[in-house]
């Protein structure tokens, strides 16, 4: 009798657990059906780039795109150096904080972007900026590159790609091979020193 009661109790408990699991709508692992899932905050927080420190960066490749997250810590954002970048077409949105964004072959686009603001940067158009522009506050940007950004390397790699390292040297221009070889582009008439400082 004792055994029967005990087994019944275990079965009831298991049934309850199953019902609970069945109604919990997060059963699919990452990558099911080719769909990639990323938790921005959780995943980016695991990837601090040092040096310089204060920059958290992670990304996921789609078949023909790369989705990336850049997060700059409060108090550090302004001091994260960024070279002038040239790469494939990109749509970036500010999720938190502020960015002084400068772009164009003559650096003719200058604007402070804040949460909810987006820019689309055509392929190879030079751009750079200062994060945490308003108050050196935490700043998060999510961005999608059109075309796989293969220079970033494999996802989840512990080693930071040379492409990103180069960007953080604040050298004048860091360009992908495709942009370096692009024919007929105008000369870039500005440098990182022309970026306004807060």
């Amino acid at each position, binding site marked *: 009798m004792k055994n029967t009661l005990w087994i019944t109790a275990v079965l009831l408990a298991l049934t309850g657990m199953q019902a609970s699991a069945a109604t919990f709508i997060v059963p699919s692992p990452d990558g099911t059906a080719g*769909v990639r899932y990323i*938790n921005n905050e959780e995943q980016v927080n695991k990837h601090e780039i040092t040096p310089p420190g204060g920059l958290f960066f992670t990304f996921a490749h789609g078949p023909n795109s790369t989705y990336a997250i850049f997060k700059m810590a409060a108090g550090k954002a302004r001091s994260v150096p960024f070279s002038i970048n040239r790469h494939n077409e990109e749509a970036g949105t500010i999720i938190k904080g502020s960015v*002084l964004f400068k772009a164009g072959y003559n650096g003719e686009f200058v604007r402070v972007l804040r949460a909810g603001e987006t*820019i689309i940067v*055509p392929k190879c*158009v030079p751009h750079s900026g200062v994060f945490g522009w308003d108050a050196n506050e935490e700043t998060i940007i999510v961005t999608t590159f059109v075309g796989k950004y293969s220079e970033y390397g494999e996802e989840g790699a512990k080693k930071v790609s040379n492409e990103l390292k180069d960007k953080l040297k604040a050298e004048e221009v860091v360009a992908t091979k495709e942009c370096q070889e692009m024919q007929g582009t105008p000369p870039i008439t500005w440098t990182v020193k022309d970026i306004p400082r807060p």
Partner: protein
Amino acid sequence: MKNKIALVALLAGLTTLTVWARPPLDTGDGVGGIRYYDSYKLTDQREAVPGFFFSFIHGPNSTYAVYKTAAGKGRDLPVNINRHNEETGVVVKGSVLFKAGYNGEFERVLHVGDAIVIPACTPHSGIFGWDSNEETILITTFTEKYAEYGSDDPKLITPEFKKKVSNIKPGVAIAETDMCKNMKNAPKVTWSLADIPKPE
């Protein structure tokens, strides 16, 4: 002499006004090929169907779009199963029950900060405001120009968009681009809107 003073004063005034009117950090939309977009402000101006706001902007080879559902409206929004070019989406407010895959095998509630990358033509749909029918905003980038959306003139709502959110017929409702319709060797879509869970 009086005239000279007046002229100088006028010029000084005009110079001040010109400087004031041209803040150094705002050079406008489109300069240098860059497209600038205020996602929330512009989306609020474009109510595609009652309670559902939608706006977008094209890049040379991409389209950035914003979808917003008003509080109390998201769950009632009929979103067909979609198939189109590769897309990355991020929830920036609220929640979305997102279902995707040819067999509907990816199913997950996405909250603020959650992102998904959907390969070209992979079927997907969902319910906005899943948690409590709250205001929900999803931003998304299509990694090719979504030409079927037409001009990014904010006054237009294209048939392509309308078919995504209307004429729901469970079992047959797939809103797909010609590219996806004509895609060779794609598996069959084995699920329908009826298979999307409903919030309690």
